[in-house]
């Protein structure tokens, strides 16, 4: 009687509660993946991480140059592990005025005997100033393909935002070059060892 009644009630109660909990599990699994775009947006908005933005159009008319200010820009290059390209900037540092369009060339050579594909990943230090460095042209926007022994000069065109905080006098733009040959030809990436 009452025991049966209680039993049935708790069965439907269980079903409802379990449905809610399973939903919570699915939602949290989704949340784990949602953390990926949340992280990217958070880094973009706050300018953390030293990540620079994508291609920007330079409007000469709007961008009057602030000649009263000089900022030193240093260029650093690094090869990721197992990457054997020769890779360096043609100038190690330049002086720029905020608002002025500049160009720096980077040299790369594939010394190996096979065709290789590389991807450069930029980073700016101090990371807070990353969002003030605008690139109109960069070899990091696309993957670079070099035949065996081929060499190349790759330009970067950029300007520094006039809104750059006053306390920043020196910025470092670094590029890390990754070997993405295996990904490029579409074969699954194998573990490197």
């Amino acid at each position, binding site marked *: 009687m009452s025991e049966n009644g209680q039993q049935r009630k708790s069965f439907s109660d269980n079903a409802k509660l379990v449905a809610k909990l399973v939903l919570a599990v699915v939602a949290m699994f989704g949340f784990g*993946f949602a953390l990926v775009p949340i992280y990217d947006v958070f880094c973009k908005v706050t300018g953390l991480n030293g990540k620079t933005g994508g291609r920007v159009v330079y409007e000469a008319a709007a961008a009057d140059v602030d000649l009263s200010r000089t900022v030193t820009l240093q260029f650093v290059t690094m090869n990721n592990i197992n990457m054997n390209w020769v890779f360096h900037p043609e100038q190690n540092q330049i002086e720029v005025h905020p608002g002025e369009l500049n160009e720096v060339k980077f040299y790369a050579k594939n010394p190996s005997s096979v065709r290789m594909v590389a991807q450069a990943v930029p980073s700016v230090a101090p990371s807070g100033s990353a969002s003030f460095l605008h690139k109109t042209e960069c070899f990091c926007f696309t993957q670079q393909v070099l035949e065996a022994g081929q060499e190349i000069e790759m330009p970067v065109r950029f300007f520094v935002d006039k809104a750059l905080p006053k306390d920043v006098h020196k910025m470092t733009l670094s590029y890390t070059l990754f*070997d993405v040959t295996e990904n490029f030809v579409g074969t699954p990436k194998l*573990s490197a060892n």
Partner: protein
Amino acid sequence: MATGHDDHHHGPAKGLTRWLYTTNHKDIGTLYLWFSFAMFLLGGTFALVIRAELFQPGLQFVDPNLFNQMTTMHGLVMVFGAVMPAFVGLANWMVPMMIGAPDMALPRMNNWSFWILPFAFAMMSSTLFMDGGGPNFGWTFYAPLSTTFAPKSVTFFIFAVHMMGASSIMGSINIIATIQNLRAPGMTYMKMPLFVWTWLITAYLLIAVMPVLAGVVTMMLFDIHFGTSFFSAAGGGDPVLFQHVFWFFGHPEVYIMILPAFGVVSEIIPTFSRKRLFGYDSMVYATSSIAFLSFIVWAHHMFTTGMPLAGELFFMYSTMLIAVPTGVKVFNWITTMFKGSLSFETPMLFAIAFVVLFTCGGFTGLMLAIAPADFQYQDTYFVVAHFHYVLVPGAVFSIMAAAYYWLPKWTGNMYDENLGKLHFWLSFIGINILFFPQHFLGLAGMPRRVPDYALQFANFNMVSSIGAFFFGFSQLLLLFIVIKTIKGGKKATAQVWEGAEGLEWTLPSPAPYHTFSTPPPIK
């Protein structure tokens, strides 16, 4: 009540299939506890390989790759195989008996969530024999070490983690359903024993973060096999993202391992103080606050990843804030003992050691929470000493305390008190010889996860290794005591302990196979 034609409802089935097909919460609790003890010995064996290698500087027994596999497997087995299943086993045994329920709410799923585990761990352990070896990237499996540079067996590791996660999620759904739906009439939330309360909160933590762990290993799987770049900078991903997602799971995980321990200790201390627990309500609120705070402190594991100052400050202060509810708990335990008529049976000894040594681990945690100081401590043996102090004399001691406390209820026999006390003192002394010197090693700058070290660290490492073998072999005594108690011993009364209060102590010892088929009256 017992009717002859219906006797399969009243006793366990015979033979091995009893354990395979059982849906009885006591049987499943027993399975969980034995499984976790087996994993404790396996993980302990890995630890002894590590300590044997570190007994002296130089490479003696194992090559660095095997050493890394040992540190990784030790962590994984102890966290997911020993501590978590032990608490689920205790919950299975005790939660229905403490709230006056006939069984767990979802008995068939209960069977399933246990039987996944042996397969998950068999698969994970089998990677040690595979080409290239098992996981060697630390239990935190940071990308790209666990993706680009991982041994090929990493896929088996990923699936093993998926299976453990499924098991934990099902277990916690079951525990939540049991606690919320099967309480005896009159058992309001604020009358529930604290062990039940802490497990309810722990189960919600598990529901919230185990899916995130499943997500992060799934991303690894995609990066390794399907050409995505979640954690690879070359493809636009970010290895630091891995750490954020991992620790979003990982920090609540450490509270998953300690909140049920708080519950156990909150049961034992009042019994042997012969007083009610001081500040029951504040215990509930403190546990809830710790659970909430555990979600907003994860990046204190990542102070050195180049976070901006604002981030360092936020995570530093929010981490320190956790000391407040934890302090409330420690205060309540001590106040419960204050002016009580204390007696020092084995469970009480383990519980008091828990309070003292867990507090030590909490204080080193506060030191590590100081962001500027953390740059010095991070990745040294100081961190190792810290989390072993909160996990071994913390979580593991509380599990041992619980085992001694409820063993007479489970088996109907009293354990040998002298042997129990001997086991306690061997463990207590062993653990401190093992882990206390590691504080000094860390402060002197010895990095963790290294098979070899500079000569100035030799003495403390030798002491620590001696403590490790001392502590490790002492645990065989626990196995002996438990078997001896199952075989026989002084018959236990229903109440077992003079000061014990709660529904489980109104049942005869050993607890019958089916209990509370009709709900008990609640005072």
